[in-house]
């Protein structure tokens, strides 16, 4: 029996879709059978981040409405044959689907897959309710900014109210130089405020932009963000992995600079 994970944030633009794409791909790399569901009906984007936009024939609403068989709508990933995408409909709206229907769908899918990962839309309305309906656990994505942390706090409250017991935090777009200068909150600062367990800290990495341009998630490559995402995947599977040092200037030369 698989696990249903919802990736959510409250605030838009903090990296939910990028996180979903990388975690899904990373878990597939770890030989797990994974299906990603884009629940952002009307504003789908997980398809372009995964580079699968040209393969869409059916979508989530088609499955719910019974216009096609469930497996006809699942798009197999280009690189990993154990990774699938169920895209959102682009021309419908969030009310085309109900939380009950989503719960039924995720329950069916977790019989067949190790991980069912839902990319949640921004906001706390119907789209959010649909996305969390069948979730066993949640990954809350935030950035070290006041607005994003505030919205994350609201989301964590709503997840608790909906009896999602397992909630972890991903702090995205950290800049080690700014944290060091004291101009940005660190992941620890954010954890202090939100009082949930940290599962990953991802640096603000140019490679993410390049990877999205190309439609190829960078998880597992040598970039700092690629390593950070892979570590999150390992932690999801239950492995204990120490947190990365996000300061790129450290490493070989740190020994010299420390002496100053």
């Amino acid at each position, binding site marked *: 029996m698989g696990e249903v994970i919802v990736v959510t944030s409250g605030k838009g633009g903090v990296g939910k879709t990028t996180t979903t794409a990388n975690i899904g791909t990373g878990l597939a790399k770890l030989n797990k059978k994974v299906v990603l569901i884009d629940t952002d009906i009307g504003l789908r984007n997980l398809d*372009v981040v995964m*580079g699968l*936009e*040209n*393969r*869409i*024939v059916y979508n989530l609403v088609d499955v719910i409405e019974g216009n096609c068989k469930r497996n006809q709508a699942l798009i197999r990933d280009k690189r990993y044959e154990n990774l699938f995408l169920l895209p959102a409909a*682009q*021309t419908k709206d969030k009310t085309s689907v109900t939380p009950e229907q989503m719960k039924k769908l995720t329950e069916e899918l977790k019989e067949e897959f190790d991980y069912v990962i839902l990319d949640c839309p921004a906001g706390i309305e119907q789209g959010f309710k649909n996305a969390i309906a069948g979730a066993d656990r949640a990954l809350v994505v935030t950035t070290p900014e006041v607005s994003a942390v505030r919205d994350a706090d609201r989301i964590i409250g709503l997840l608790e109210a909906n009896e999602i017991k397992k909630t972890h935090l991903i702090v995205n777009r950290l800049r080690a130089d700014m944290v060091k200068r004291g101009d940005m909150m660190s992941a620890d600062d954010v954890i202090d405020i939100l009082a949930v367990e940290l599962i990953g800290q991802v640096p603000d990495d140019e490679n993410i*932009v*390049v990877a*999205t*341009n*190309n*439609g190829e998630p960078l998880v597992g490559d040598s970039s700092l963000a690629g390593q950070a995402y892979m570590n999150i995947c390992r932690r999801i599977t239950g492995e204990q992995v120490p947190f990365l040092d996000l300061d790129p200037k450290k490493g070989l030369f740190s020994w010299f600079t420390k002496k100053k």
Partner: protein
Amino acid sequence: MKISDFFKKKSSSDVAKDRLKLVLVSDRASCSPEILQKIRSDIIEVLSKYAEIDMEGIDINITNVDTETNDGKTVPALYANIPIKNMNHNLK
């Protein structure tokens, strides 16, 4: 285009632009390029039974047009321009 560009690998920002142009065409038309391709080949197959088609000159696309009621809403429409070389009258 500079000569040096010819040897350069396509930058990821160019890849992004190309992908976006494609995806926006299908978003606006609410039809994926794959489906459009299928429509295209089906139309060609059917018409080829009756006429010789100028394959080079085919232009099939989905665009949005205003509705007849003029209420600002648009509906998708299929535009097809298919040049015919020769009508096939030998059909029985």
